[in-house]
C-alpha cells in the first residue's frame, strides 16, 4: 500500500515537474544591487532616533509628505515598492500603521519598535464592533499610538531600533551602542525635564486639543480631557460653549494644543482668560528636528504663567 501511495505521489510529481521542466536554472545569478542601503521610518520621532543611531550606515527616509499626519497616511504604490527595497522598516507599533495589512512587505524587515512594551500600550475604548452574515462579531479596536510622548517608552523604542541595526550590521555594533547611549541620555534628559515641569502642572484643569497625549498623561500624571479641536479650524459655537462650561470657575485651567492655533482662536481663548500652551508630539517633519521640537515644548512649558 505504502509503495502504491508513493508511486501515486511520484506520478503526480512527475506531471508537475514535467509541466515546467526543461533545465533547472540552478546557477542563475542575481544582479547585485548597488543602490545605497535605506531605512524607512513611519514618523518623525522614529526618523530622528534612527538617524541618530544609524549614522552613515544607511539613508533614513520618512516617506510621509510634510503636513500630513503620519498616523493617517497611507503609502502609495511607489512608497511600497521603495519599502520593498529598504533594509529595514521601522514601525511605531500600537496599531500606528494601519496600512500594514494592505501591503506586501518582508516580515524580516519590519521592526516594531514598541513591541517589547506591548503590555504598556493603552487600549482605546468605545470602538464599534459589528457582525454580518454568518461571521462572528468583531471589532476594529486599537490602541493609543503616540507612545513616544512617554520618554521612557521612547527610550525603549530607540533601544529596539538599535538592536535591529546591530542585527543587520553586526560589525557596527560598537558604534551603534555608543550612539544609542548618547540618544538614551538625551531622552532621559527630556524625561526629567517633563517630570520637573509636570510637578507645577499637577492638579490643574487640563484640556487637550486632541486625544494624542494618553502616554504623556499617564507618564507625567497630567490627566485631562481630550477634545477634537483642530488648531487651524475655528470651533463651532457649541464647542466654545462646552469649553466655557468646562473651565468656568476654574482659574487653573490650561488648554494644551498639539500645534500653534490660528490667531482668531488664540484671541478668543485669551478673551476667555484661558491659558494655553503648545506641546507638539511632532509626528511629522518640521523646521526643527524632533529633539528640537521636544526642547521647544519644554521651553514653552517653563515660560508658562497662569
Amino acid at each position, binding site marked *: 500500500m505504502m*509503495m502504491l501511495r508513493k508511486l501515486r505521489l511520484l506520478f503526480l510529481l512527475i506531471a508537475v515537474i*514535467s*509541466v515546467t521542466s526543461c533545465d533547472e*536554472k540552478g546557477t542563475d545569478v542575481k544582479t547585485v544591487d548597488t543602490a545605497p542601503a535605506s531605512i524607512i521610518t513611519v514618523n518623525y520621532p522614529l526618523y530622528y532616533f534612527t538617524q541618530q543611531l544609524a549614522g552613515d550606515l544607511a539613508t533614513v527616509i520618512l516617506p510621509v509628505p510634510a503636513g500630513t499626519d503620519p498616523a493617517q497616511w497611507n503609502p502609495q504604490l511607489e512608497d511600497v515598492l521603495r519599502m520593498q527595497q529598504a533594509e529595514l522598516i521601522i514601525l511605531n507599533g500600537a496599531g500606528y500603521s494601519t496600512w500594514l*495589512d494592505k501591503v*506586501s512587505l*518582508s516580515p524580516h524587515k519590519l521592526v516594531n519598535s514598541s513591541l517589547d512594551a506591548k503590555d504598556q500600550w493603552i487600549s482605546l475604548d468605545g470602538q464599534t*464592533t459589528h457582525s*454580518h452574515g454568518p461571521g462572528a462579531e468583531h471589532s476594529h479596536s486599537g490602541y493609543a499610538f503616540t507612545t513616544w510622548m512617554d520618554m521612557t517608552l521612547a527610550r525603549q523604542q530607540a533601544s529596539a531600533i538599535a538592536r535591529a541595526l546591530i542585527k543587520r550590521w553586526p560589525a557596527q555594533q560598537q558604534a551603534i551602542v555608543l550612539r544609542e547611549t548618547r540618544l538614551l541620555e538625551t531622552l532621559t534628559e527630556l524625561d526629567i525635564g517633563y517630570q520637573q515641569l509636570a510637578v507645577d502642572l499637577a492638579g490643574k484643569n487640563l484640556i487637550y486639543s486632541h486625544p494624542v497625549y494618553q502616554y504623556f498623561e499617564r507618564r507625567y500624571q497630567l490627566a485631562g480631557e481630550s477634545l477634537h479641536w483642530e488648531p487651524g479650524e475655528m470651533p463651532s459655537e457649541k464647542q466654545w460653549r462646552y469649553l466655557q462650561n468646562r473651565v468656568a470657575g476654574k482659574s487653573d485651567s490650561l488648554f494644551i494644543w498639539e500645534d500653534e492655533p490660528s490667531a482668531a482662536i488664540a484671541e478668543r481663548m485669551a478673551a476667555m482668560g484661558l491659558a494655553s500652551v503648545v506641546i507638539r508630539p511632532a509626528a511629522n517633519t518640521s523646521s526643527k528636528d524632533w529633539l528640537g521640537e521636544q526642547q521647544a515644548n519644554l521651553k514653552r512649558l517653563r515660560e508658562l504663567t497662569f
Partner: protein
Amino acid sequence: MGDLLYLSVQYIRHHKLKLAVLVFAITLVGWLPIAVQIIVDQTASQLLARADSTPIVIGARGSPLELSLGSLYFSTRTPETLNYAELEKVAATGLATGIPLYYRFHSQQHPIVGTTPDYLDYRKLRISTGRPFALLGEAVIGSKVADELQLSVGDAVISSPESVFDIAGVYPLKMPVVGILEPAFSPDDNAIFVDIKTSWVIQGLGHGHQDLANKIALGQILKKDGNNLVANASVKQYNEITADNIDSFHFHGENSLRPISAIIPLTADDKATALLIGRYQQERDDVQIVRSQKVISELLDTVFTVRDYIVAGIAVVAVATAIVALLVFFLSLRLRRGERFTLARIGASREQIILLMATEVVTVILVSGALSAMLILLTHQYGMQLLQQLLLS
C-alpha cells in the same frame, strides 16, 4: 561487389515486412532500458535540485513526503496548516528567518501561492514584465500561467472555489496581474504568487465591505447594541480589491493565528541548519521539520526500485527477443539453402555467399542500432515533455 550489393538490396526489398518487424523489436529492446534510465535520471536530478535549494521545510505534523512535495511543488491540494506565529518562532530562535507559504487555493489548475516578497528573491525569480506584488490582492504569475491562460499585465486571475457545492462559501477573489515572471523552468512557472494576506482574503479571513456606520448601509443593520452593530447578510462584500475599496479591507483577530501551509527556513550556514533541526526535533511535538533532500531521496529510492523492476523486465524481453531474432535468422538461412546452391552453381565464391547471407543480419543490427540511438537522443531532449503529455492526457 556491385553484384552483391544489388542482390542484398533486392533481398531486403523482397522481405521488407519481416525485416521491419525484426528491426522494430530490436530497436525497442535497445532503446527502452536506456530511455527508462534517462527519464529516471532527469526526474531524480530535477527533484534533487529543487530539494537541494530548499534543504529544510517546517510544517504541521503529518506526512513528511506531502509536506516536502507541497512546499517544493505546491502539489498538495488541502495541506495541513500551522499558525503564522510559527514564523516568528523560527525568527526567535536566532538561527533562521522564514518564508511562509500557503498553497491551498487554485485558479483553474494553477496553484495560488500566498507568500512574501522574500520568496521571489529566494528563488531568484525575475520579473519579465510588470513588477512584484506590492498591494493586497495583487498577483504575479509564472511564465507558463501567462502562456496557458493568455494573460498579460493588467489582466486578472480569479481564485477557484474549493467545492462547486460550497455555494455559501467564500466568494472567488479577482486579482489583477501586476507582473509576469521570466521562465525559471521550475514549478514556479506554473504558480500564481500573491501576498500571504491575499490568500487569507481568498479564504475569507479578511474581507472588505460597506461601511456599516455609513447611512447607505443603515437598511442592512439588524440591530445596534451599544457599540456593536449587527448587520444582515446582504452587506455588500467586495470580490476584488481596488484602490477605491482597499481601505475597507480588514482582518479579524491576530495575524499570528492565521493559517499557513509551510515555512522555508533560511539559515546562515549548515551549523545553524543542524541546530534548528535539533531544536525542533527535541522541543516541538506540534510541528515537524523535514530535510527535503532526505525525503526526496527516499522517494527516489522508490523510483530506482521501480526502474530496476522495469529494466529487469525489459532484460527478460530482450533475451526473448534475441532468441526469436536468432531463430528468425536461422530459419531464414535454412529457407535460403536453394538460393545459396544456385549462387554456387552460377560461380559465386564461398566468401561472397557468406557475405550475402550476412547482409540480412548486419542490416537489421545496423538499422536497429541507428534507430535506437536516434530515439535515445530524442528521449534525452523531449522525454520528459512526452511523459508529461502522456500523464496529463
